């Protein structure tokens, strides 16, 4: 009966309850959309960072991590690459020979990281081949092909087929260099990455350096969810045993701690947004319930007189408030989940902010993300906040005696 009574009490003043419910619903839709937007954008940033830059795991010689000199190659890389290829949890791996050098065209010169990659292996690890906007991805045909970013091409006035000279310091400390022809031009979502990298074949670069080997193995796992951190730790430990004592396995969080810190920021940002919203919502409920109980003070006096215990009156008010939270939260989540589902289909396009987003490695079209646990958290928080909101109005009634309450005239 209390539940029924609370529900009906809620609808005594339909307009007032309707206005508050509308505020809860629209506020909640806004909050969830904002949470989805932030989570989607940060996730996109992390996914792009992992996809283009760090991969999920990398293996280096510790000397390379201290000082990325040419001679700091991995210990026994070939058996390691073969062993990695056998690992069921690894989808692909790519060995890279990396040299810091210069790229020069007839017009200009720039400092750049020269990545010597095996074209087939690299396409399995990074989506670089799909990011080629002009020309072609590297293959085993032709002499000294190079893949440059659209930014580099623009700055050095390069086109497909243009000649560039790559120079770097070899292991003897001499300048090594050779002419390469632009085979393809790529563009990734991260302008910083584009600015600082170009790709050549591994064999061309090692021949030029006069040194065999690789500096880095990038690994893509079968499990792509960047939130699966336990799995990542598990695989990293396993691969460390495989890589031996000399080589060092690091995951993307260790390679890019700033990117990893974003994971924590997602939770904090969402908690702040949700906290502000539920506080505002709770004050709204306090206001409505205060008006409602003051209007019904005499009625509560009568209930006390006929023997209704105070804890039941308290429960009645909690139920009224809980109904507000449940109905408002439920409707809000229903509409919000519909909106999120639509945006997950269409995506959120921020083409006008392309330059700014590229600096953070975010796609111009990304998709909001709201997990089932986020929906659950929001709903529970709204209901709990609505229960807390009932405490003050309930106290105003419970401190009255039956006679004093019945004497109130509203």
């Amino acid at each position, binding site marked *: *009966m209390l539940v*029924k*009574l609370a529900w*009906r*009490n809620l*609808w*005594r003043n339909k307009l007032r309850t309707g206005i508050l419910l509308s505020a809860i619903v629209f506020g909640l839709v806004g909050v969830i959309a904002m949470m989805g937007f932030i989570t989607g954008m940060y996730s996109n940033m992390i996914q792009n960072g992992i996809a283009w830059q760090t991969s999920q795991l990398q293996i280096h010689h510790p000397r390379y991590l201290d000082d990325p000199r040419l001679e700091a190659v991995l210990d026994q890389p070939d058996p390691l690459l073969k062993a990695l290829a056998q690992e069921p949890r690894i989808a692909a791996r790519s060995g890279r020979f990396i040299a810091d050098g210069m790229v020069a065209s007839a017009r200009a010169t720039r400092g750049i990281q020269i990545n010597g990659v095996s074209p087939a292996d690299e396409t399995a690890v990074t989506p670089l081949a799909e990011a080629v906007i002009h020309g072609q991805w590297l293959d085993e045909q032709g002499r000294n092909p190079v893949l440059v970013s659209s930014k580099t091409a623009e700055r050095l006035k390069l086109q497909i087929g243009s000649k560039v000279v790559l120079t770097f310091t070899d292991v003897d400390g001499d300048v090594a260099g050779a002419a390469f022809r632009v085979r393809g031009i790529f563009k990734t979502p991260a302008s910083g990455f584009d600015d600082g990298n170009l790709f050549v074949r591994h064999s061309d670069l090692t021949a030029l350096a006069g040194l065999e080997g690789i500096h880095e193995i990038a690994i893509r796992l079968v499990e792509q969810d960047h939130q699966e951190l336990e799995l990542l730790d598990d695989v990293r430990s396993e691969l460390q045993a495989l890589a031996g004592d000399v080589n060092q396995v690091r995951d993307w969080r260790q390679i890019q701690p700033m990117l990893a810190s974003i994971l924590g920021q997602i939770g904090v940002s969402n908690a702040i947004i949700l906290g502000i919203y539920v506080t505002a919502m709770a004050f709204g409920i306090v206001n409505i319930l205060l008006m409602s109980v003051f209007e019904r003070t*005499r*009625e509560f006096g*009568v209930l*006390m*007189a*006929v*023997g*209704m*215990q*105070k804890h*039941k009156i308290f429960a009645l008010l909690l139920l009224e408030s809980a109904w507000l939270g449940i109905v408002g939260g439920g409707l809000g989540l229903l509409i919000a989940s519909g909106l999120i589902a639509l945006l997950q289909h269409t995506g959120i396009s921020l083409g006008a902010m392309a330059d700014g987003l590229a600096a953070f490695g975010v796609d111009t079209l990304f998709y909001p993300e709201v997990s089932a646990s986020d929906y659950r958290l929001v709903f529970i928080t709204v209901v709990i906040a609505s229960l807390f909101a009932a405490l003050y109005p309930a106290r105003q009634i419970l401190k009255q*005696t*039956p*006679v004093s309450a*019945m004497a109130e005239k509203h």
Partner: protein
Amino acid sequence: MSIHTQQLSKTYNPDSDFPVQAIKPLDLTIEQGEFVAVMGPSGSGKTTLLNMLGGIDPPSGGAVLIDGEDLCQLDQKALIAFRRDHVGFIFQDYSLLPVLTALENVEFVMQLQGHKEAECRARAEQLLTEVGLKDQIHKIPAKLSGGQQQRVAVARALAPRPRFVMADEPTANLDAQSTKELLDIMERLNQQEGTTFIFSTHDPRVITRAKRVIVFEDGQLTEDRRQQPEHAA
């Protein structure tokens, strides 16, 4: 179950410069099954007396003894249980819950006692039938006339099988016909169920129906007489 007051008094704002003595020390006994009218002008202390006898307003002095047990010595929990189980209240403005139907209003007080739903339903239907509202049980108070609402209030007051019913000017808002019908019902239930009815009033139509009339003036008992009630034609 009898009610006995010993030097019962009530003073409002006792610590202020202008204390108001609503009830002057009063010794009174009301036996089980009486049909008592408390009359007097407005402000004479009728409602205050009923509130103290019903255990919803603590006295300033003296005691209210129910079968020898002092209500003032009961803690809050016991006092609420006493009201719930032994006292029925009827108010001038009916004071029904507007969101519940007539049936639910009557059931509700029984549910507070912890009775099972089916038992509450049966008793509520029986009482509403007895007060002549068999066909109106699913209507909310706003859909009932004043007289009908007060009949629901009577059924609600009697639902928990109380020993006493305190009715504060129950006919004040009713027309002559409704007043007569309500008094008939209260009189019948008084006789059938042996419930003690104590009602405050200054309505002569009500006073003539009472078996005992207690008169108050300025918080003081000025007359306590038993009479042969007039029965409505």
